[in-house]
């Protein structure tokens, strides 16, 4: 009962955070709501007994992605970020349509899906859908005592192709970012002032978080 209450609590917080992300007019506020949402997702992982995934979620999404978004806002827009944004009204209708369509696809996908074992999906179960709770076979017991080795083995055996492709993609992104930063640094040497040395680090700053993300993942 406590777990269900906790789930409903965190889930509703998550919905609020998601709405805030979409509705906030100030970009930094939107990014903050997004951070809150990521955190709620991490909480959900904890409720599912997957603290390894929760830590990864916080590390990658809050520690890297959110910081990267904030960096992007800082480097590309009015630095103080006061300005509020609103898209052109004509873009709203297609946007809403696409959002509803994606929602429909996701909902039907989740409801109709079956697990590899042929059992119905979690959404149709009444009990708490924890990966590790309940069953007592050696696999779920090893997940309970330490999830990291299980995830590692899965990544390097069953999902190795996806893993390698993701690695390749991130490497390409890093190389591209460095190439872009290099070109712009060579083309426009900054003004020779004290302020210049601070702002000149911005091309590097753009390349670095990308590298950070690649190394972290």
């Amino acid at each position, binding site marked *: 009962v406590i777990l269900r209450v906790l789930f409903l609590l965190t889930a509703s917080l998550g919905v609020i955070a998601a709405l805030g992300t979409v509705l906030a007019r*100030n970009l930094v506020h939107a990014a903050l709501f997004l951070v809150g949402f990521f955190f709620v997702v991490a909480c959900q992982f904890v409720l599912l007994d997957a*603290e390894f995934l929760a830590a990864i979620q916080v590390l990658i999404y*809050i*520690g890297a992605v959110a910081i990267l978004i*904030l960096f992007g806002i*800082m480097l590309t827009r009015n630095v103080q970020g006061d300005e509020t944004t609103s898209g052109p009204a004509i873009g709203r209708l297609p946007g809403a349509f696409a959002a509803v369509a994606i929602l429909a696809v996701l909902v039907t996908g989740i409801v109709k899906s079956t697990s590899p074992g042929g059992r119905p999906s979690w959404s149709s179960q009444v009990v708490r859908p924890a990966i590790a709770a309940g069953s007592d076979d050696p696999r779920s017991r090893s997940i309970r005592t*330490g999830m990291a080795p299980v995830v590692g083995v899965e990544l390097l055996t069953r999902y190795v192709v996806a893993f390698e492709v993701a690695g390749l993609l991130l490497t390409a992104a890093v190389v591209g970012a460095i190439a872009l930063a290099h070109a712009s640094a060579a083309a426009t040497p900054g003004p020779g002032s*004290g302020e210049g040395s*601070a702002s000149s680090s911005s091309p590097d700053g753009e390349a670095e978080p990308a590298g950070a993300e690649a190394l972290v993942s």
Partner: protein
Amino acid sequence: VKITSMATTAPGPGPVAGASDAIPWLTWFLWLAVGFFAIFPFIVAYMVWAERKVAGRFQDRIGPNRVGPFGLLQPIADALKLITKESIVPDAADRVVHLLAPVLMMISAFLVLAVIPFGFGSLDRANRLTGFLPADLPSGLLFLVAVSSLSPLGIFLAGWSSRNKFALLGGMRGVAQLVSYEIPQVLSAVPILLWAGSLSLVRIVDQQVDSGLWNVFIPPGFLAFGILLIASLAEVNRTPFDLPEAESEIIAGFHTEYSAMRFGLFFLAEYLNMFGVACLATTLFLGGGSLPFGSFPKSLLLSGGSVLLVNLIAIGIFLAKVAFFVFLMFWVRATLPRLRVDQLMNFAWKALVPLSLANVLIAAVWFEMALRPGGPGVLWAWLATAVMVVLTVYLAIKGLNLGLKTVPGARRRLILPEPTTAIAAPTATTTV
């Protein structure tokens, strides 16, 4: 004060105790109430006192000595002052975010301490230590890294919400620095994971105690230790890396616009972070609360000694090691001038990251030679990896200049010909 209590209650789960599992809730509650409310702030207060005393000695003066014997009541007086001062939020500031930023920093600093094994605990059925700590997570190290990655967010929000260009500059510098140095910091812990085969910090300590060989005595472990120390210094914004709050350049950096206890929270978070990285280094590389070349307090536990006594000894040894690290940080601060921004970035990306990547490979060699059964043994492994480590560091210094030299050409024009932009504030000789 209200914000402090908010931040300190955040780390643990709230008091929603179930009747059946009352014991873990009780220990968590005790950790929260005693550890996080009383002991850790107390430690921070006296770290500040110690730093002022130590810095005083380094500069040939006495340091605080008026309030109480040896100035021992000074931190309490300072805390009272911070609490009673008026807390000003700038008119232009983004109020909510402005108030949120120091709380985020505090949460990050406190959560790090939740997985540090301060003592040994008792033995489980396989004669392994259970650890004396708030929560022994199976992926404790990852948790630690994850929550410490929240602090750049706090710095950024503090700098951004103040609507002050110096705060913003400090925030940008802080985020760039913390994101950069986080990578060598994490990579330097990878060898330890490889050797211990676990992410749990208790397990890592246990492995070192059982093998009798602290990780710092292994050549790749030593290199990793050095990298971790440098990167941690940068992670907690201590002096050679204090660019985010460089007072001679950008007033006080990201916390320029903070006053009273909100400033105090940043202060508290900074010193808690120092304490946290000292604990981390002790846990990962110095065998936690054990003596070198043996398994001293644990051997007492194995031969049926009192759990309480063993834990007191272990905590004592642990705190002595932590105190050494903290002193090291004071020492470095009193000695070294500040880096320039370009040096800072080059050092992280061109020296520390490649070094720590190479070190992971050397650590794998150690694993194959020393830890795998049937390998050539510890002595050969030690010699081989020592040669590799020395060679790697030599190559890094020769080939990469440790990233510290200015590359002629493009960068040259950006930097004025002054010798340094940093002023070695604490070392300025005070001869009259």
